[in-house]
């Protein structure tokens, strides 16, 4: 199972749990599964069929540029972080 870490501001969805175990798949599948368990999750991270503007998914400690197509493997750790721009 992959592990999804929720930032403190999303832990209201899980009743305070920081980490959730999820089966591997595309990020879209992962988000859909989490949303089934914790309704409202998808609305917090997805907008118009893509990742919410201003947010980014980090898979195995690297920000993915593949959006919801990104692959999450069985050993993956996934973080949700704010987008960061360089100068």
């Amino acid at each position, binding site marked *: 199972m992959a592990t999804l870490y929720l930032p403190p501001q999303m832990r209201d969805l899980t009743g305070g749990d920081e980490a959730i175990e999820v089966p591997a798949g595309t990020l879209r599948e992962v988000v859909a599964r989490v949303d089934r368990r914790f309704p409202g999750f998808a609305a917090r991270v997805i907008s118009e069929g893509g990742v919410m503007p201003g*947010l980014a998914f980090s898979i195995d400690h*690297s920000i993915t540029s593949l959006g919801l197509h990104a692959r999450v493997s069985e050993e993956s750790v996934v973080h949700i972080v704010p*987008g960061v721009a*360089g*100068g």
Partner: protein
Amino acid sequence: MTDSPSDAATDYAPSRVIADPDLRYEVIGTRPVRHDGVDKVVGRAVYGNDVRLPGLLHGAVLRSPHAHARIVSIDASAAEALPGVKAVATSADLPDLTDCWTNLGEVAINLAHLGANCLARRKALYRGHAVAAVAATSAHVAREALSAIRVEYEVLPAVTDVLEAMEDDAPLLHDDVFTDSMGSSSEHPSNVSRHLVFEQGDPERAFAECDLVIDRDFRTASVHQGYIELPVATAQWSADGRLTVWASTQGSFTTRQQIAGVLRIPISDVRVIPCEIGGGFGGKITLYLEPVAAILSRKTGRPVKIQMTRAGVFQGTGPTPGSVVRVGLGVKDGRLHAGRAWLAYDAGAFPGGMIGAGCACVFSCYDIPNARVVGYDVCANKPKTQAYRAPGATQAAFATETVIDELAAALGVDPIDFRLDNAAVEGTTRVDGTVYPRIGFVETLRAARRHEHYTAPLDGPSAGRGVAAGFWFNIGLKSSANVHCNPDGTVMLVIGSTDIGGSRTSIAMQLAETLGISAESVHPQVTDTDSVGYTDVTGGSRVTFATGLAAHEAGLDLIAQMRDRAAFIWGCETHDVTFDAGVFGGPDGRSLTFAGLAAELPGSGGLLTARATVDAVGPTNGFGVHIADVDVDRETGKVSVTRYTTVQDAGKAIHPSYVEGQMQGGAVQGIGWALNEEYVFDERGHMENPTMLDYRMPTALDVPMIDTVIVEVPNPMHPFGVRGVGETPIVPPPAAIANAVHAATGLRLRVLPMSPPRVHEALVQAGADEDAGGR
């Protein structure tokens, strides 16, 4: 004049590279003359304002005289009637977009806000906000016509202070901006557009367990990127619907995307031709002039060029956020055990400041197992803030690195040793949850500790020395490269990364290394958006890393094609052809150099072209450590930097001179941020110092030589070990200098800039306190 500290500075070894002895290269690590150099020293290079077109009209921009005002009406009829005036544009000429996001690779931006920043819609949100623009037969006529445009304003109360803007009763900039807290939105509109919380471990319990806790408050002023080239754009909207824009931009493709988005036209109708760019530092990623020049060109049928004035640059373009930061750190058994930080950053007139980076950077140099970070992005009546070299990191590091210095002093530990004891290493978890890959912070700290400067004697009672560290993420993103092989053994390298500081050469050198030819045998060209594959911005310290990777991969593609050709010529199989150090080898001892085979190409099936497009991953992080010596004039409060050393992990320095140049230039920008630069606002929210005389950037006379030590801890994710370099060097200087000022005077200054009046006041106050204590 010979006894100044800066004269002495030339005596010691100014630069050093600490390299991995196992890595050997022919081209990489050498210092060739940059390919575009001659054009730039003889005045021939074509920058944005040097574009000449037949029938060219000149534009000028009318800016709001109020920091916050409703635009009741705009009457341009008198201006339009003036001789030489060809058109006037207002926001009515741009599509009225509602929330409409586009992803620029690094971040997504709201095109509705971008358009309204280019030309104010309904409200002017800061003094200097563009309200209208004129195209005329000369720049003089255009500027004069601005005064004939009658704008009726309803002046509104303004707020420029970040804390005041957060108050419930503060003047509200937008009735459609709500506080976003990781996907959940506030009920009522607010100037606070974003609220972030990061947490790891159990900070509350951890603080209770600490032997020593220090909490401090800090403020930093808004500062400008300060590029010397005035923003300029030339647009030609042809009758066939195609729009060509000559731009001064950090990213031609993202400029194309933003233009198409703001104007709501197909991206394929827009061609962006990037000119040479006179500095950006993050400030030339967004658009200001391009859509305005475009609609003026559409109205007139002629090309239109608009160049900003310097006052327009200060008042109308992004400074980087001013900040209010509170940092607390706790130590248990000599190790950092707990951290807490509260950060509020200016966003300026529209949401989207640098708060995310500020929050993720505030503790990024250290292994702090328990931490909580809270951040706010706050709209205020100032120009929309923009990225500036490691955007968001410098404000945060100023706070943390000052508190670290205080902790080390309280513990009686050397400040570099204290950092070494607590340094982030491979495997350390940052507060946003990211675990570090192989990084070179410890190696960088050790190199600084060993540097002669660190233990050199200080001269005089008003001298002091400080150190500070800095971190920046660095990014990868997308880059493309085309390589055309010539029959004389040279290659043309075509890239889309605009070259701000010599990157053509650092990319060409990576291709040369790949092909086994000299740097001079590669001819790099930066081309327009029609002529090369998609390439993200020149920013995020990514170009030498990512576009270098694209050039390397295109080089590998070319070698593969040339091995096929050698096999054809020699009548063997491709797998029988080897390639090593620029020489193709075949059966029976046959061999051809790269140039030898290139000469055979035209007669054996034709010349070859290779290409690559990469989505580069693994830029890995940049760490730097700076050592600053200062001398404080107790009469005037002036702080002089007398000696300065920067140490940084570059992964692998492709062209060490330009790596040193990034370290030196970033350090001096940081020195300016530390000591002099600030937006001064009056009570109406008007910037009082919009000139380069009053907005005081460092001159040659203000700084010493900047010594450099390049540490090379190769990045395992790049074929040559490259890490980004450009941004990290601006991060440490304010804290290094504040720590040096403390060493010199015993005073802790926690407000930037540490300008002479502020330092003088602190010295006077300290003297008064001492007198009072003495009685």
